């Protein structure tokens, strides 16, 4: 990994770097003064100040300002000096970043530092692709200009990322002093102001010297940065209102807060994704780089963005469906019922001013219930299974296998979070049927990869010899990654059915037994007594 390699490089510390930068700068200034003392330089000097020279010459005891101006001109002309100037600019920027970090964030946490590092290298990588792959910049001046632009942009987006991480951390604590919130919000406002200034700058530039395409490239980045910053700010304000301002009227604000946060997240995420998507499409279309590495990278990014948008919309549909279902099926509890209940909401442990009533007569806050029903479909208190638009399916547990593509192989689960964190079967006894159907749908698409699966399962089993292979295989079918399956095993998600553990142990030859299963073709596991284990191979 390049990052690990970079970590090991002897990067000079900041103090040393600053000292060296200042030393080099003063050297180059000295060099430049020596040059402009030489009258020959003036004659060699190019057309730029053909006019000004006449004005300067008469006033030979030059003013300091004039002197400075000449110095600067000379330095810009000399390639050595321009590099030291750029180096100095970076040094100042790093110092600025450090002082902002000291002032606003204090010591960075490990995860924040890691995020920052990842984001930084990601940014550098994509901008490198952009400048040399997409724009195909030829001239040094242009490269330097783009470089400056992206430095400013990258600096701001790193700060914005840092603010986001820090906000999430601060929201874990009830005792954060007010001024640290104020400083963070101040920094966010500054980032927002600067990003809108940059947007204005490129809008202004479009009238003078850049093409519309360049403008669109530049503006998209500014908009992304701005929207992200606004998102963090809005969430921050909602959070602050929620934890502090609403101390007296927490109950009143509660019901509004859930949907408010949700829609803030939804809208800003969709805007960011859409702008990013368009930005990447634009890059692909206008750069005529169809057969190159850069286009490959952009296509991969586009694919990722597309799936993200799809995921977000699916999640939103789910949200709306739950909302709709709740409104239709679970009435708001009446005041009498609330008074009779006199208990707090079991989900958030806060007092209920209004509540929804489940068929089992348990009461919950509207938004608490909503967020629970998005991931599960039983009453939190008594586990009564709530049928979510699935009445017809409940009656017919044997669902005819439908042609399923791998992307929607979990289609039977009504509530599915595509990030894989949690999906839900709405009836406890139903989960076997669900996995059955899913596997049957998959078996054809997976047939050709079976040998690969076997190899993967063997690898996992070397690490965990006590796990039966069909369990590992089944998990591998879902995760399609050795690492995830190992993670699942370590997390205890993948449980060993007890009779399978007991078998080898009863025979007290666990080691040989396991190595036998290692090399056995998977179909021979069929003689397992439990019908559930026949499922993956049922169609063979």
């Amino acid at each position, binding site marked *: 990994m390049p990052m690990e390699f970079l970590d090991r490089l002897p990067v000079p510390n900041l103090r040393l770097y600053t000292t060296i930068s200042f030393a080099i700068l003063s050297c180059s200034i000295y060099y430049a003064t020596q040059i402009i003392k030489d009258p020959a330089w003036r004659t060699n000097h190019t057309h730029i100040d053909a006019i000004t020279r006449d004005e300067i010459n008469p006033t030979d005891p030059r003013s300091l300002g004039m002197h400075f101006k000449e110095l600067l001109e000379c330095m810009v002309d000399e390639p050595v000096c321009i590099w030291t100037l750029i180096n100095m600019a970076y040094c100042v920027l790093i110092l600025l970043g450090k002082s902002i970090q000291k002032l606003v964030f204090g010591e960075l946490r490990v995860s924040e530092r890691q995020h920052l590092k990842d984001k930084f290298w990601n940014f550098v990588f994509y901008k490198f692709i952009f400048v040399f792959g997409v724009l195909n910049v030829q001239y040094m001046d242009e490269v330097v200009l783009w470089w400056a632009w992206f430095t400013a942009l990258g600096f701001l987006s790193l700060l914005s990322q840092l603010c986001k991480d820090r906000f*999430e*951390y601060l*929201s*874990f*604590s*009830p*005792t*954060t002093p007010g001024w640290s919130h104020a400083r963070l919000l101040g920094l966010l406002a500054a980032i927002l102001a600067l990003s809108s200034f940059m947007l204005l700058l490129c809008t202004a530039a479009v009238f003078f010297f850049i093409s519309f395409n360049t403008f669109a490239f530049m503006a998209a980045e500014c908009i992304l940065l701005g929207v992200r910053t606004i998102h963090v700010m809005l969430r921050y304000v*909602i*959070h602050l209102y*929620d*934890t502090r301002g609403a101390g007296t009227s*927490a109950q009143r604000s509660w019901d509004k*807060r859930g949907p408010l*946060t949700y829609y803030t997240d939804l809208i800003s995420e969709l805007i960011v994704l859409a702008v990013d998507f368009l930005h990447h499409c634009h890059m692909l279309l206008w750069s005529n780089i169809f057969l190159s590495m850069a286009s490959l990278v952009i296509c991969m990014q586009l694919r990722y963005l597309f799936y993200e948008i799809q995921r977000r919309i699916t999640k939103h549909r789910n949200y709306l469906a739950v909302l709709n279902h709740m409104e239709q099926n679970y009435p708001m509890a009446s005041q009498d019922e609330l008074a009779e209940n006199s208990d707090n909401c*079991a*989900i*958030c*442990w*806060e007092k209920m001013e209004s509540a929804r009533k489940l068929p089992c007569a348990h009461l919950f806050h509207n938004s*608490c219930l909503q*967020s*629970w029903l998005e*991931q*599960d479909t*039983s009453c*939190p*208190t008594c*586990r009564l299974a709530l049928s979510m638009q699935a009445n017809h399916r409940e009656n017919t547990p044997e669902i005819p296998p439908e042609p399923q593509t791998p992307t929607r192989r979990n289609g039977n*689960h009504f509530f599915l979070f595509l990030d894989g964190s*949690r*999906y*839900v*079967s709405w009836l*406890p*006894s139903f*989960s*076997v049927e669900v*996995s059955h159907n899913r596997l049957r749908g998959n078996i054809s698409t997976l047939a050709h990869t079976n040998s690969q699966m076997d190899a993967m399962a063997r690898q996992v089993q070397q690490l965990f010899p*006590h796990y039966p292979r069909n*369990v590992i295989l*089944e*998990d591998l079918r*879902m995760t399609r990654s050795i690492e995830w399956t190992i993670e699942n095993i*370590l*997390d*205890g*998600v*993948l*449980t*060993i*059915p*007890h009779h399978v*553990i007991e078998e080898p*142990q009863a025979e007290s030859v666990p080691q040989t037994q396991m190595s036998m299963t290692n090399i056995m073709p998977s179909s021979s596991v069929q003689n397992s007594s439990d019908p*559930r284990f026949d499922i993956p191979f049922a169609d063979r």
Partner: protein
Amino acid sequence: MAGSALRRLMAEYKQLTLNPPEGIIAGPINEENFFEWEALITGPEGTCFEGGIFTAKLIFPPDYPLSPPKMQFTCEMFHPNIYADGRVCISILHAPGDDPMGYESSAERWSPVQSVEKILLSVVSMLAEPNDESGANVDAAKMWREDRSEFERIAQKLVRKTLGIP
């Protein structure tokens, strides 16, 4: 949703300090971060873990109580339902969708009405009565079934260790 999680955790902490269950102490390690708790659990009386004081760490997700926390013993443990690295394997810490085999019924799993107190009480009863069907530590499960006296000897050694007695 960290705001509601935070309020709920604060409420639980308040309740645990005002009205602590016997043999259990729990609270945030650091007031600055309410999402990481430490718990002290005394070994249940009349079992081989009696007298021990076991330390554990609880990590809460930002969407708590919709998702269960993770619990990990920070002292050395030897128990059929505790992994070698200290992570606890009990059904109420499993999210409802997590079990692909349908091995645990969903009634035993996590739900937002569970709480830190209930988790810790379940852990105490798990210490008293290991469930050797879900083998987080296969060696311990096997020993629990086949060689109870050796298991108890190891448990007693761990108890002494937690108390700082060699």
